């Protein structure tokens, strides 16, 4: 059986006298396959505590957590030899130059001295700090420091990289660059990546599976890769006019839909559905289309539903009364 990147069994963690994680259990990723796992949840859900427990910062009060087959508490050193961690906080060592910082961090992770210097230069060029590598970290901008933190997490070529809020405080171009780098890490270098973020769009772009935490427990675990393979397309449609017959017409063409309010629809399109048919359908019913948004997958819906903010998604068995569900997939 293939080995999971992270394997958590009934994990309980107490900080002070308060239990933060209440019996978390999950198996995430497959070692050596270069997958990205998104860790989602609202503030206080226990995401950071879970990451810190994987890093051995907190001792579990019950249960166990294993990373790449090693126990996070009993075999902490072996786990940390295989991990790269980018903290959420603005952590750096102000008096060091970029290259010095990476050399020391690489050597502390076990790179031989001569290799550490070479890798420091290589990694700084990789994250776009090549020109600034001889400047002290204290003079870097927030975005540059963020990139330097990413660089220190990957300088030693870890098997698993844990990124805590990697796009926090980045401008749009830096954010895009960060997401590209994360994608490269898994696709070109075969690293497993855990991305902890509040930004669903970021997770959606780079992750293959997601785990959603709420109040210290896993409330949902979804395989985004499988969702993408299913090629379900989601559309949000806003129309003006009498749309009472729209649902039935969509259903006839194999789509599933939810009428949220008058004129607002959420639709799941079948794989071969041509969007132009939707425009034609609206025109045939005398509706004017005010807005049409197409999304590739359902992460936002998955998240909202896991949080209890959305009762159901199109295509699922009806469970609520507020929305009208039509069609099935």
């Amino acid at each position, binding site marked *: 059986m293939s080995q999971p990147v992270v394997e958590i069994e009934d994990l309980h963690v107490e*900080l*002070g*006298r308060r239990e933060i994680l209440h019996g978390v259990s999950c198996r995430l990723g497959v070692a050596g396959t270069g997958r990205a796992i998104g860790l989602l949840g609202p503030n206080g859900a226990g995401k950071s505590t879970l990451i*810190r427990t994987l*890093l051995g*910062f*907190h001792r579990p009060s019950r249960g166990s957590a294993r990373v790449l087959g090693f126990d996070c508490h009993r075999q902490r*050193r*072996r786990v*940390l*030899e295989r*991990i790269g*961690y980018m*903290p959420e*906080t*603005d*952590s*750096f*060592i*102000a*008096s060091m130059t970029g290259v010095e910082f990476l050399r*020391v*961090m690489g*050597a*502390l*992770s*076990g*790179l*031989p*001295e001569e*290799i550490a210097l*070479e*890798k420091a*230069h*290589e*990694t700084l*060029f*990789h994250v776009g700090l*090549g020109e600034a590598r001889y400047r002290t970290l204290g003079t870097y901008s927030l975005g540059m420091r963020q990139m330097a933190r990413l660089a*220190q997490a*990957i300088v*030693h*070529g870890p098997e698993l990289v844990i990124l805590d809020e990697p796009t926090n405080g980045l401008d749009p171009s830096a954010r895009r660059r960060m997401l590209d780098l994360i994608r490269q890490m898994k696709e070109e*270098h*075969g*690293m497993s990546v855990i991305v902890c973020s509040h930004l669903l769009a970021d997770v959606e772009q780079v992750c293959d599976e997601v785990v959603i935490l709420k109040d210290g427990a896993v409330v949902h675990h979804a395989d985004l890769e499988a969702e993408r393979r299913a090629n379900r397309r989601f559309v949000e449609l806003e129309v003006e006019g009498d749309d009472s017959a729209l649902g039935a017409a969509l259903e006839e063409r194999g789509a599933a839909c939810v009428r949220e309010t008058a004129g607002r629809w959420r639709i799941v399109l079948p794989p071969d559905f041509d969007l132009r048919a939707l425009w034609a359908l609206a025109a045939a019913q005398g509706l004017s289309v005010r807005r049409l948004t197409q999304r590739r997958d359902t992460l936002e819906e998955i998240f909202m539903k896991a949080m209890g903010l959305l009762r159901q998604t199109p295509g699922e068995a009806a469970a609520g009364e507020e929305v009208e569900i039509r069609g099935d997939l």
Partner: protein
Amino acid sequence: MAIYKRGYQRYDGPRASRAARLAVLVRDAWRRATAQRLVTVLLAASCLWPLLCAFFIYIANHAELWAGMDRSFASILSIDHQFMLTFMKVQAVFSVILAALAGPGLVSPDLANQGLPLYFSRPISRFDYVFARLASLAGLLSLVTWIPGLVLFLMQVSMAQPGWLAANWRLGLGLAAGFWLWIAMVGLVAVACSAYVRWRLIAGALVLGYFFVLSGIGAVINGIFRVEWGDLINPLRASYGVWCALLGAPMPSGLTLPMSLAALALMGALLALVVERRLRPVEVVS
């Protein structure tokens, strides 16, 4: 191929040993400790007293230079435990100032810049981190304590009459052991103050305060309550008691060797506790 053309390659070769990683940590701490110009100036200044002592040893061992002077002068010019204790007291003060200058730069910046998770998310432990800081500080303090002390001792051995070493070997051993005990105490105070306060300047003041304010408090206790155990909370005095025992000098009044050792052990334990509580990868608010 130029590095900027080659691109990032994941390293999967052999990893360095734990000792090599620890050496990196020690070197990094040494670089920080010696980065300030003031530290270099103080190191140079702390050589003055050993130079004077070396001159003294030279004079003491060349009777022809003071022939004809009275006997009281001759009695002053003897290299014994009193000479060594005086040397140690002066250098101990230099070492405290040096620790106050160099020590806070070892941990405070990591706390101020939230750098501890970067260290502790790597295969090094908190013990490794503290050990590296202490080791670099011990190296620095050695330059002003036992190294010049042993140089003076060897100088005296080489110049003195043949029987001097056999009669006074304890001075060399006591000096080295006494200074190592002192270095451990000063190093622990510097690391604890540096871990307790994020601002270097205040941490430095705290190091000086630890030694000099506690000395004052000890003296005040002795004066008010007309006792002598006030010396036990004075790290300088407690260490002095141990030095006297190691060098074979009479113990100062009110102090015994077990009392001095117990006082130093208690201080060391409290400082270690401060370090243990403060140096954590993440702060947990109960």
